[in-house]
């Protein structure tokens, strides 16, 4: 029995890796090969698909646009959530618990609900088709999440640390920026990661609120039917590349996330 204990995890991992493998596999094939025959690995290995993406501005601008609004969103969300989470973790004020819960309820509505109002509003104020539009729309979901995560980490830091800093003569901002923020760096990492991931994979709002200037990569991918039909190889290569930033971020914050789970807030 023990000798086969590797079997189940291996099968499971194969099952998980299969779609990713297939995507990578396709990205190194020509569209003809994909459509023409069933092959387990590329018969005519080609980097042509990737070459197109890295040289054609309509493709690589999609990545640049996505990265711009995702970064903007992550910075905005964490910057706004930090003081809010501090207030929730350190002060008792009228309706604090209700407010905290209400923040979370924002996440319970599907983004589609907000697509129409955002579209109309941003068109009216001239924000339509800008990176800021998407970044702002995503903060609606990310700030509550970031506040929730950061509050958990902050409550894990004893209030006496704040008091010690004041006793030592630190001002609030000196304490907050020089001592408190480094102390909860792990929490900030986790919050930033979740903001990044939500904003990176969210498609509906990003697509609705942009046209040309700030068009995200996912939108580019859905609009690439050419006269010769779908270019599947190209799409597969674009898809493979969209996994890369997420994988990078996960690699860097993996230890922090484990810590976050231990604190019961992720």
């Amino acid at each position, binding site marked *: 029995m023990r000798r086969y204990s590797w079997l189940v995890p291996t099968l499971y991992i194969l099952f998980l890796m299969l779609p990713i493998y297939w995507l990578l596999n396709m990205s190194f094939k020509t569209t003809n090969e994909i459509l023409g025959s069933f092959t387990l690995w590329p018969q005519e290995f080609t980097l042509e698909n990737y070459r197109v993406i890295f040289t054609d501005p309509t493709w690589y601008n999609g990545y640049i646009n996505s990265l711009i609004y995702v970064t903007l969103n992550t910075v905005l969300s964490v910057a706004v959530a930090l003081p809010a989470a501090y207030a929730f973790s350190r002060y008792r004020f009228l309706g604090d618990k209700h407010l905290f819960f209400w923040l979370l309820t924002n996440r319970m509505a599907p983004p589609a609900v907000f697509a129409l109002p955002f579209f109309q509003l941003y068109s009216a104020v001239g924000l339509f088709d800008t990176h800021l539009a998407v970044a702002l729309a995503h903060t609606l979901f990310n700030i509550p999440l970031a506040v929730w995560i950061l509050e958990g980490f902050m409550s894990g830091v*004893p209030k*006496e*640390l704040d*008091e*010690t*800093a*004041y*006793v*030592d*003569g*630190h*001002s609030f901002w*000196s304490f907050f920026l020089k*001592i408190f923020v*480094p*102390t909860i*760096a792990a929490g900030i990492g986790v919050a930033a990661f979740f903001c990044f991931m939500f904003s990176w994979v969210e498609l509906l709002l990003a697509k609705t609120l942009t046209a040309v200037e700030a068009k995200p990569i996912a939108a580019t991918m859905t609009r690439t039917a050419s006269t010769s039909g779908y270019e599947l190889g190209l799409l597969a290569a674009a898809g493979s590349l969209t996994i890369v930033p997420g994988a990078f971020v996960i690699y860097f914050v993996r230890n922090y996330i484990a810590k976050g789970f231990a604190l019961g807030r992720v």
Partner: protein
Amino acid sequence: MTLELKDVSLRFGADTHIYPTSLTLDPGSFNILLGTTLAGKTTLMKLMAGLEKPTRGEVWFSGKNVTGVSVRSRNVSMVYQQFINYPNLTVYENIASPLRVARVSEAEIKKKVQSLAELLKLSPMLQRRPGELSGGQQQRTALARALIKDSDLVLLDEPLANLDFKLREELRDELPRLFADRDCIVVYATTEPTEALLFGGNTACLHQGRIAQFGPTGEIYRAPKDLVSAQVFSDPPINTVAVTKRGGEFRLADMATWAATGDFANIADGDYTLGVRPHHVSPLASGDNPVGVDGKVLVAELSGSESIIHFTMHGATWVSQSHGIHPFEVGSQAKLYADMSRAMLFDMDGRRVAA
């Protein structure tokens, strides 16, 4: 440099944390706040430091009203029971922190940190982070940070409570030396009467948000003003029972009678509460006026050189703490002797009757 609390009280909504309290701490004095957990020791310290603003009353320092002055502008240091250090800074930077804020020159910071580190045996750890240190070293770091600036007021909130026995003794010996050549006011909170006695100085007995008594430590121990002080200043808790005095004789229900000797002879007849410290109750008759009482043994703890026997006696739970090993069967009847010449008498309002 005198710290004065003038009728200071603190309330949160309907909860009173500190009842109106007045206290004067002299320059260069070592003061102990003695009380059980939740007695209000930490809260009172925060009021002294300026971390909490009193609901009513005023805090004066060196003849100036500092009630509304923030803790930053007062020259105060504080050490907590939990080991509080800045986790992202090295031990060196932790200790240097108050000087950095005060913009002291680098050369002077270095000199001061190194001499303090030497004193507190932290020299080899200066480049490490607090998380990599043992509990004792972490608390030394916190102490060093509290000592590096010449504070007018140093507040130590049960600084030794989270340390193991050996380290606690070690650090307890070092503490008075650290303050020997300073003229700051030290306030030390503790739950342990023994600790208060070891440090000496002045003691304030704190009970449920009120100061029961304040004065020289030894004096309060020997002659507590009332029952509350006596209870706070006794561990294990002081034994009490109702007694009656009539015509030169004390009577404990129908269990025991004894002659009112010494100072007890002069007090008026009537009902009193008798208080006997656990180490004046022993399985062996000893002292000037041993009186036997009968009890049922609840617990008998025998440590290497000492017996602690908990027993019920006339409806009250008493504790006897005596030298030597005195084995008792749990549940058995036992005869123990209280030295009544060392007992204290309290009237029905809890005030100690002169003895």
